């Protein structure tokens, strides 16, 4: 495109200052900042998980520069690992990170609806992370009541080390994070509703956008409930109320009952927390579900099978996701009739989830996919989604859950379906969109090595946890050896398998170094990317949006003419019609 003469005469824009570039309202930079935050967090979280695994099987080892790991240190690690991974990795990276980076481009918008609010949302998230990490350094250390912070443990400062100031900082961090996420979700919703370009009807929106949309709806509903719960817990801790503290609650030899004995109920916290907590799980997985559909279709050069059904199942997973929080409470004293209802709604989620799996299979059926790294990670996503999902209906039975709930079986279940599947979605997204972020390609050979190492490592780490769980290994135990009597023998029996899990976790983490090498190497020296390297059909690959495209190209109106993923084999090769292509459909030509 020829630049306009008046543009040529303009002076070259000076480089914006560093301050301007960091405190920007540009959604792409905010997206990258979110991803950097998530990458930092996931590194911390992973190191913590390694420390936990090592301590679990070699409890006598001393941590260099720290000393022996005490049981409360182990619980603090559990808490920070869970909180960081759930909130600062699995919520920020798929939803806020890639949401900011890709979403506007995918709907043909130039920016988010509220850029300033967007920046505020990011910086609040960063503040929340700093508050959380700072709790490690206060007297008593971080909170030890897990990412779910069940009272009365979390409601009483004397309940353990870390339950004083550490717990307060945890509350503050999550409250700030909840506000930040709500702002971010509102931004995403309004952007999707109001900023779609001409022709981008609801039915033509890429499934990734549907994933972000549904996750944002869930965020708007769920995070404020968490905020209310945090407020009540704060009152219990500091104002002397007893919303969650039952009568005559004995903690560390002292009877605590809140300001007024009697009506407090820890179950109330569980209801409020899991009303947020379960949608939270879907917030982290929904963008990955959408991305998988799009990537499978793209790399197997097929249309997404049953596109409308995929949209409906995305919304249905979101809707059912807010109706089944009770399945986290089967062993917490929930009314058995309520448990039955929650079991039904939980198993109902298998219907849209299976529909998604069927659509994925039908999309790739008898196609000849190109197995790029992004495609491999999408297939890995499906594999983990199915493996982790299959134990879902098992745990949805109150009677089975009663036995399994506090064992590693549940740890295996949610690490496979939520943590690993969502992380595979993130890896797929990184390999797929890296050219768009940097104008360079990531190394495919390193990518394949990373994929196979991660897949094998993930299965080797989390599959055996089902078995140790069935053998009776409980969650949150800092040590499995050195326990007397029959229970001790039972725990010790799981040790060989646990050592294998720990070694697998070490391998899994080491393989991630390949990813970091690939990332930083490709950032500087990667092969430069063609405008549309994957021959994708969605709008973010519009030539005008390429990092190296002239600025004037952006001024051109984008118009969408079709659904994504229109591919067709033709005698002369293969035809693909991007969403912005105005060409007619060759199938309906009159000839």
């Amino acid at each position, binding site marked *: 495109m020829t630049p306009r003469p008046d543009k040529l005469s303009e002076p070259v824009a000076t480089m914006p200052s560093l301050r301007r570039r960091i405190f920007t309202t540009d959604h792409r930079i905010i997206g990258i900042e979110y991803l950097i935050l998530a990458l930092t967090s996931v590194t911390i979280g992973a190191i913590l998980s390694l420390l936990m695994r090592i301590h679990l099987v070699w409890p006598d080892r001393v941590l260099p520069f720290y000393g022996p790991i005490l049981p409360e240190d182990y619980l603090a690690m559990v808490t920070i690992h869970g909180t960081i991974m759930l909130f600062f990795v699995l919520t920020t990276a798929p939803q806020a990170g890639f949401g900011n980076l890709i979403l506007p481009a995918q709907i043909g918008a130039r920016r988010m609806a509220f850029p300033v609010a967007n920046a505020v949302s990011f910086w609040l998230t960063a503040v929340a992370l700093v508050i959380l990490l700072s709790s490690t350094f206060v007297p008593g250390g971080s909170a030890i009541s897990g990412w779910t912070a069940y009272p009365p443990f979390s409601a009483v400062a004397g309940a353990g080390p870390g339950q004083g100031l550490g717990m307060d900082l945890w509350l503050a961090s999550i409250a700030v994070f909840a506000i930040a996420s709500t702002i971010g979700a509102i931004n995403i*919703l309004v952007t999707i509703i109001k900023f*779609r370009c*001409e022709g981008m009807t609801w039915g033509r929106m890429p499934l990734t956008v549907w994933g972000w949309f549904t996750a944002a709806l869930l965020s708007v*509903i769920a995070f404020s409930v968490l905020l209310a719960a945090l407020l*009540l817990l704060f009152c219990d801790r500091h104002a002397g109320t007893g919303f969650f503290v039952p009568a005559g609650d004995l903690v560390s030899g002292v009877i605590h009952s809140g300001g007024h004995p*009697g009506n407090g109920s820890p179950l*109330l916290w569980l209801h409020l927390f899991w009303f947020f907590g379960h949608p939270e799980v879907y917030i982290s997985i929904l963008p990955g579900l959408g991305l998988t559909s799009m990537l499978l279709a793209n790399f197997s050069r097929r249309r997404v099978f049953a596109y409308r059904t995929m949209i409906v199942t995305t919304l249905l997973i979101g809707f059912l996701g807010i109706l089944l929080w009770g399945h986290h409470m089967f062993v917490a004293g929930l009314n058995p009739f309520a448990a039955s209802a929650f079991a039904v709604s939980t198993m109902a989620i298998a219907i849209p989830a299976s529909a998604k799996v069927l659509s994925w299979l039908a999309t790739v059926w008898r196609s000849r996919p190109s197995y790029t790294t992004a495609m491999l990670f999408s297939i890995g996503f499906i594999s983990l989604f199915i493996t982790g999902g299959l134990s879902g209906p098992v745990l949805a039975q109150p009677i089975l859950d009663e036995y399994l709930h506090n064992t590693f079986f549940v740890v295996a279940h949610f690490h496979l379906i939520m943590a690993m599947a969502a992380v595979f979605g993130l890896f797929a997204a990184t390999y797929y969109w890296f050219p768009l972020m940097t104008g360079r390609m990531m190394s495919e050979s390193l990518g394949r090595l990373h994929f196979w190492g991660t897949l094998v490592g993930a299965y080797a780490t989390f599959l055996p946890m089902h078995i140790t769980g069935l053998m009776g290994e409980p969650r949150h135990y800092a040590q499995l050896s050195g326990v007397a009597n029959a229970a001790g023998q039972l725990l010790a029996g799981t040790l060989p398998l646990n050592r294998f899990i720990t070694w697998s976790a070490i391998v899994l983490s080491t393989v991630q170094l390949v990813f970091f090498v690939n990332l930083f190497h490709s950032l500087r020296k990667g092969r430069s990317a063609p405008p549309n390297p994957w021959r994708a059909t969605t709008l973010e690959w519009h030539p005008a949006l390429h990092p190296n495209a002239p600025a004037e190209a952006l001024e051109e*109106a984008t118009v969408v003419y079709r659904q994504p993923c229109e591919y067709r084999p033709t005698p002369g090769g293969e035809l693909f019609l991007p969403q912005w292509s105005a*060409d007619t459909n060759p199938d309906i030509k009159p000839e």
Partner: protein
Amino acid sequence: MPSTITPIRTEPKPRRHVEDHDNGSGRRPPTDKRTGGGGDNDNWGDRPRGNHGPRERLVRYRMGIFFALASDMMFFVAIVSSFFVNQSTGHFDAYNNYINEWSATTIPPILWLNTLVLILSSITMEIARRRMFHEVDAMDEWLGLGKPITRRAIPWVAVTAVLGTIFLVGQWIAWEQLALQHVFFLSNPSSHFFYLITGVHGIHLVFGVFGLIATLIGLYVSRSLESRQIMVDCASWYWHSMGLFWIFLFVLLVFFQ
């Protein structure tokens, strides 16, 4: 010739008309309510990106505030659910007697007056909001005849802010009256909730009053009619919602304790 039978573009762009060439820069009067956007091909094609007509920004901000208020509603819903759970929970004492400590907090009658004040403030706010969209005045402003819209809306916004402050003072008096009867935050589970609900709602109203003051300043300072309309519009939807939330919470406190 196939191209004449099947047009190249299945969805042709609308033809350009000079009078349709509206980029939201004020060339059309601000009474034009077409917004564009939403992927529905509504009067879209002729405009540069990111600026889709006079009301586009207004509708966007309004939608943002609606989602924020929906989220806020869930916050109150969570607290109200806790209210009912705590109300119906008891415990067994050492003699195996079932004890429910809940005893209803008497509602200070001044709350009825406060509620009336809040409803009144919602009405004044709605008048202010409608003044901001008065078409004749908007045309006057568009023609450059001063800021009649602002002139007419400012008193109503100011009255709303004053009424809001009166409501807050009234809530404070209600707390004082309860304190005189020795009903404090910690007295009883029901008083926990009375103070918590009125307190949290009061904080929302403090934000609201600050918002109204910011709006008043904005009405003086801002030159763009659209920005002023957005400020008043968003402030008033927030205000109405706080009124609705209060009526809901007040009914809860009066009839469901």
